[in-house]
């Protein structure tokens, strides 16, 4: 130590001078660090921090846009919107004390029939996306809950109620399957290109036309950017940008509400699972499409209770399934139209060829009997269709068993292939063929190769065939219009709020099938006889119908089920405008349950289109 005393005079000696020089150098170094750091932050990186500061102080709020309405072809509203109350939690206003916070969230979970764990998870996920923004816990809360919360506001700080739009269905279950529903976008969907720009929590169409035409219906959410302070509180005069929400456009369907109602009422009256479709044979516009049992689409506007989950998802009769487009059914005798067309076009059958029906057809030791054990003697095609003679078609099936002609024509008419409809969930079905079964046999998945018996079964819509009313309607429409395979669709046009048409949907035909018009005429004649001349299979149902029609019954045998009833009808005869296909599981004979439903539908249709039935082509031939 250099300090020996505190004598007077300048106290600086050499050793102290060195220390002070070092002290000064140290101070210079520290200031240099501060200046350099300041220079780096403000001059070199200033722009970056300025951008961060600007980003910091603004918060965007999205206001959801109401979705467009869904209308029937005449403008009747099928789906509209209503405002509903949504329960939100503002995390900034929750109690700070962890115990109080926990208690409040527990109470909230109880009130909303949720669990604390679920609630915390929802909040955590939403807050990751939008820190400090209110979290929507439940949409469409009941008024009783709102009143309760208002009365007990002090017990629920930070809980808010906001108005949001939810779907409203003025006609309840009407067209539930084809309309589909709206729900929050899933994580998987967020990654799809068609949902680009959407955010978690946004609502999109999840099924039916809500899904297919989502981009028109969805609309654009409004955006409000406001200046906020560090707590996220809006600052005075802090509104920066405000873009009002743009409501979605309206979607007009080709559905005709009256026809749809008639079909659904008819099916519901039978009380059995089934489906129907009515389609314009020239354009593919679907006028009605329904499935039974059905469901309330409004069910999906709020969280399901366990009872509702059981009734919808876990119900053996599958109310959510759209049987008209996703059913897997044999068709019974309705398939005979296809068999007849294949036989006529491949030349093995002429309108004048008669085939003898002795009550049964035997091939390879196996005997195929007529339904009901009847025997009609010698028949040509028209009477064979009229009475739905099985042996006649067994014979044709046998004659074409290894030519592939039946499969060729069934395939051409749309059986066992994607229908191209604008609804999600349509299935391909199965058209059994020699190649298909032999392949299975080779792979050891079946015990026998293709045989004549398989083709005989197919000729009458039995065996391994799996199709549905949509595919059959397409096949009938193709024959009726002379070979144009239409693209079935329910979307007709997009209109804005003022009703101006923004876009029309008229999808081009899928393909054209070359067919001899004479063959078409003779087949339709046979179907007309079946429907409206005494002795015809559905004469009892359609005999008295004022409009001439051509219709075919079907009674399909399904393993493990009672017979399935089918009816497919073209109207008016002989130049059909529409095709209606109806099937009812375990409905028995075609004329017994499916045909009456088809009659209801046609009555509703022709009630509206009275002029069509009285047109120049309306007269019954003979």
């Amino acid at each position, binding site marked *: *130590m*250099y*300090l*020996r*005393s*505190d*004598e*007077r*005079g*300048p*106290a*600086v000696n050499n*050793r*102290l*001078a060195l*220390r*002070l020089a070092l*002290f*000064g150098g*140290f*101070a210079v170094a*520290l*200031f240099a*660090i*501060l*200046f350099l*750091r*300041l*220079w780096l*932050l*403000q*001059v070199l*990186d*200033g*722009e*970056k*921090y*300025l951008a*961060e*500061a*600007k980003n*910091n*102080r603004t918060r965007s709020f999205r206001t959801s846009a109401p979705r467009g309405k869904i209308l029937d072809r005449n403008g009747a509203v099928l789906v509209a919107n209503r405002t509903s109350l949504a329960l939100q939690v503002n995390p900034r206003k929750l109690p700070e004390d962890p115990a109080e916070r926990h208690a409040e969230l527990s109470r909230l979970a109880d009130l909303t029939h949720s669990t604390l764990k679920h609630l915390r998870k929802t909040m955590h996920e939403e807050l990751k996306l939008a*820190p*400090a923004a209110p979290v929507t816990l439940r949409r469409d809360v009941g008024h009783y809950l709102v009143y309760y919360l208002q009365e007990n506001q002090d017990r629920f700080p930070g809980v808010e109620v906001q108005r949001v739009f939810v779907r409203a269905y003025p006609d309840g279950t009407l067209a539930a399957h084809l309309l589909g529903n709206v729900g929050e976008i899933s994580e998987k969907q967020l990654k799809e290109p068609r949902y680009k720009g959407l955010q978690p929590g946004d609502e999109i169409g999840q099924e039916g036309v809500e899904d297919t035409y989502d981009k028109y219906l969805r609309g654009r959410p409004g955006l409000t950017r406001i*200046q*906020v*302070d*560090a*707590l996220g509180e809006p*600052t005075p005069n802090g509104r920066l940008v405000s873009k009002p929400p743009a409501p979605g456009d309206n979607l007009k369907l080709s559905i005709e509400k009256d026809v749809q109602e008639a079909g659904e009422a008819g099916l519901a009256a039978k009380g059995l699972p089934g489906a129907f479709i009515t389609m314009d044979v020239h354009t593919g516009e679907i006028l009605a499409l329904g499935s039974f049992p059905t469901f309330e689409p409004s069910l999906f506007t709020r969280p399901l209770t366990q009872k509702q989950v059981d009734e919808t998802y876990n119900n053996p009769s599958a109310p959510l399934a759209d049987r008209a487009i996703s059913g897997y059914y044999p068709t019974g005798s309705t398939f005979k139209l296809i068999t007849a067309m294949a036989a006529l076009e491949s030349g093995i059958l002429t309108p004048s060829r008669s085939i003898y029906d002795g009550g049964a057809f035997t091939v390879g030791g196996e005997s195929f009997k007529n339904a009901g054990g009847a025997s009609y003697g010698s028949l040509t095609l028209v009477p064979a269709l009229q009475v739905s003679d099985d042996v006649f078609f067994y014979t044709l099936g046998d004659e074409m068993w290894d030519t592939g002609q039946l499969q060729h024509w069934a395939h051409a008419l749309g059986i066992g292939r994607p229908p191209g409809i604008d609804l999600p969930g349509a299935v391909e079905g199965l058209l059994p063929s020699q190649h298909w079964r032999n392949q299975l046999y080779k792979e050891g998945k079946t015990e026998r190769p293709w045989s004549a018996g398989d083709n005989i079964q197919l000729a009458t819509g039995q065996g391994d065939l799996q199709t549905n009313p949509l595919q059959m309607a397409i096949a009938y429409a193709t024959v009726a219009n002379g070979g144009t395979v239409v693209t079935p669709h329910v979307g007709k046009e997009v209109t804005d709020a003022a009703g101006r048409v923004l876009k029309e949907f008229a999808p081009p035909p899928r393909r054209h099938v070359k067919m001899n018009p004479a063959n078409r005429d003779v087949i339709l004649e046979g179907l007309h006889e079946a429907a409206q001349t005494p002795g015809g299979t559905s004469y009892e149902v359609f005999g008295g119908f004022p409009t001439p029609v051509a219709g075919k019954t079907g009674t399909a045998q399904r393993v493990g089920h009672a017979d399935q009833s089918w009816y497919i009808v073209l109207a008016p005869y002989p130049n059909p405008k529409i095709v209606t296909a109806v099937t009812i599981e375990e409905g028995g004979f075609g004329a017994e349950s499916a045909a009456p439903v088809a009659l209801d539908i046609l009555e509703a249709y022709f009630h509206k289109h009275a002029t069509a039935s009285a047109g120049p082509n309306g007269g019954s031939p003979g």
Partner: protein
Amino acid sequence: MYATRARRARPEPFAVHPGIAERLGLPYMDGGLALSATALVAFSVFTLAQATKHDVPGSPYYYVDRQAIYGVLGIVAMYLLTRIDYSRFRELRVGIYTFLCVSISLVFVFGFAARGSRRSFELPFFSFQPSELGKVLLVLALAGFVIDGARSGSEWQRTVRYLCLGLAPAALVFLQPDLGTALVFGAITLAVMYVGGVRWTHFAVIGAAFVAMTVAVLVVAPAVGTPVLKGYQEQRLTSFLHPSADPSDAGYQQNQAKIAIGSGEKTGRGDRATQTRLNFVPERHTDFIFAVIGERYGFMGAALVLSLYALLIWRALRIVTLSKNSYGTLVAGGIAGMLLFQVFVNVGMNLGIMPITGIPLPLMSYGGSSVLATFVAVGVLQSIHMQARLSQKGRFAW
């Protein structure tokens, strides 16, 4: 060398009929020191006037009025101290030291608790924080002890004695708990010991012990379940190492301060400032006032403030060399070290390179205790300067 130039600057140092300036002792004061201190507190008032208009509802000048009063009182205190011979403090060292320790201890009994920490007494006009004035008191007392004990005991004994004398009040402050001020006490102790000539080897040992203690406090103690630091203290100390986006984290505050300063760019955002105006930066009138200056006045303003501090500390270091006796040298060295430490730690914290420790920026941060204590320290420096000048005058007079 300085003395020569200073002499030349005064044409007639011993006038027969002293003028008003001479009577007030102005020629013997350090102009740069007085100027920088006054300018800093003026800048503080100016900044608070612009930045805290809406902080206290109904009284836009709440902080401004008070800080201005503290500044004026501080300048008066500085001047009064100038006229006292600081060497008297050496004789009063035991009394000063006792007062220091007792006043800090009394806070535990009568103290006013703010945010879980008892640091100050609630007085009619302001809350007095003894540990702020205690910084200066510690310099005065400890320098006296060092001079006094210069010839007793071995060097190691002396080093340990100084450390104990310095760290005892530091420990008291730490228990308040006020980590920042405790660290300033530590820095003061080291600065006085350094200028007092404690051997380098002793500093090396102290340094090693400090590192070992840091590891023990931050790593070992929490690991064995007896943490010394409170959770928030530890978090603050380490947060500058990992900035965070979580507003509840200490790292968030530091990040916001950094953004605030950076966004000021060269010329500042003025009233368009958002970071420090909309509460993104906490404690903007106290610990983070430098961020306000950085955002509002940009590099120009922040660099000006830093330059004023550089001037202040340069003048303090110069006074170390001018002192007429070793006690003055030690006192000036302790004060210079105290100011340097506070400025570097506080500004470094604002710039995101030092931990958050709750050390105010001398003369800039709002707060009566801090402003007054700093002016007292500057007044003591002025006293040392004046005594040196007067003794020179005397020497040349005779």
